[in-house]
């Protein structure tokens, strides 16, 4: 590295140090995995492990378990063409909450789903604000008897039926 110093470009804007990291060089049929984690006993030193994983669903799921055991914080993929897909999707959905996180990420990125989730959640929140006190209000605030409240709700409910 010292010899080629002039050719090394350091991207200072996006620079970030991840303590426990893995990289996978993905080929058609396999991936070469490399993990770098802090050394167990010697501070400042790092342990590098390199091994090959076949690009099969079960092997990649095993890899995901192993990376989770080593508490890897980030995995970086390098691949030609579409061969990154099995590694990307299987690793992304691994671990607790993986699939839920994927679902949420999809919702947040999708303009229609993001707006509908925000809108529906806001509506839900406020209808439960009113729903929790409406009966009490009908009784205490409006001074209606149980029978009249029931009648009002019964008549009112036909609105939902009509809209169908």
């Amino acid at each position: 590295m010292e010899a080629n110093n002039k050719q090394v470009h350091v991207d200072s804007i996006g620079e970030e140090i991840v303590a426990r990291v893995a990289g996978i060089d993905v080929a058609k049929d396999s991936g070469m995995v490399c993990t770098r984690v802090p050394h167990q006993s010697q501070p400042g030193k790092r342990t590098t492990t390199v091994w090959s994983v076949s690009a099969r669903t079960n092997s990649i799921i095993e890899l995901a378990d192993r990376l989770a055991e080593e508490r890897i914080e980030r995995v970086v993929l390098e691949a030609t063409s579409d061969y990154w897909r099995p590694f990307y999707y299987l690793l992304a959905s691994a671990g607790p909450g993986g699939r839920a996180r994927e679902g949420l990420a999809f919702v947040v990125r999708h303009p229609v789903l993001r707006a509908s989730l925000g809108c529906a959640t806001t509506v839900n929140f406020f209808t439960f604000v009113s729903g929790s006190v409406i009966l009490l209000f009908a009784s205490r605030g409006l001074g209606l008897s149980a029978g009249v409240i029931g009648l009002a709700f019964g008549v009112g409910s036909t609105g939902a039926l009509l809209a169908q």
Partner: protein
Amino acid sequence: MGRSIAVGAVLFPAPIAIAAAADGPVWVRAGALAAAEFLSGIGVMLFDVNLNSLQTTVIPDGMRSRVAGAFSTINYGIRPFGAIVGGLLGTLIGLRATLLIAAAGGALSLLWLLPSPIPGIHSLTLSKPQR
């Protein structure tokens, strides 16, 4: 379609203000409560039925369960908080004011829709399956 969702987003939560504002003889108070429920019922149907159809169309088959899981967790997860806030407000500022806040706050949900593509969606064309 998109317009129905937008109308529903307001018509579902807002009519409770009619009940909150009611005064006068008993038939007026009861009528206001019934009218609020009636309009709100129309609103929820405009909102839910159309929004569910729209969501079904835009979610790819392979993502359905994951999206539904994440969506419902947040959408339904907010409910207990709404109920807690409703109870607290009812105690602190009164039942009538709580209902008015709920009506106004619920109507503000429209703000999520306005900048989105949803109000401009007129019909759902069934294209080829996406995956």
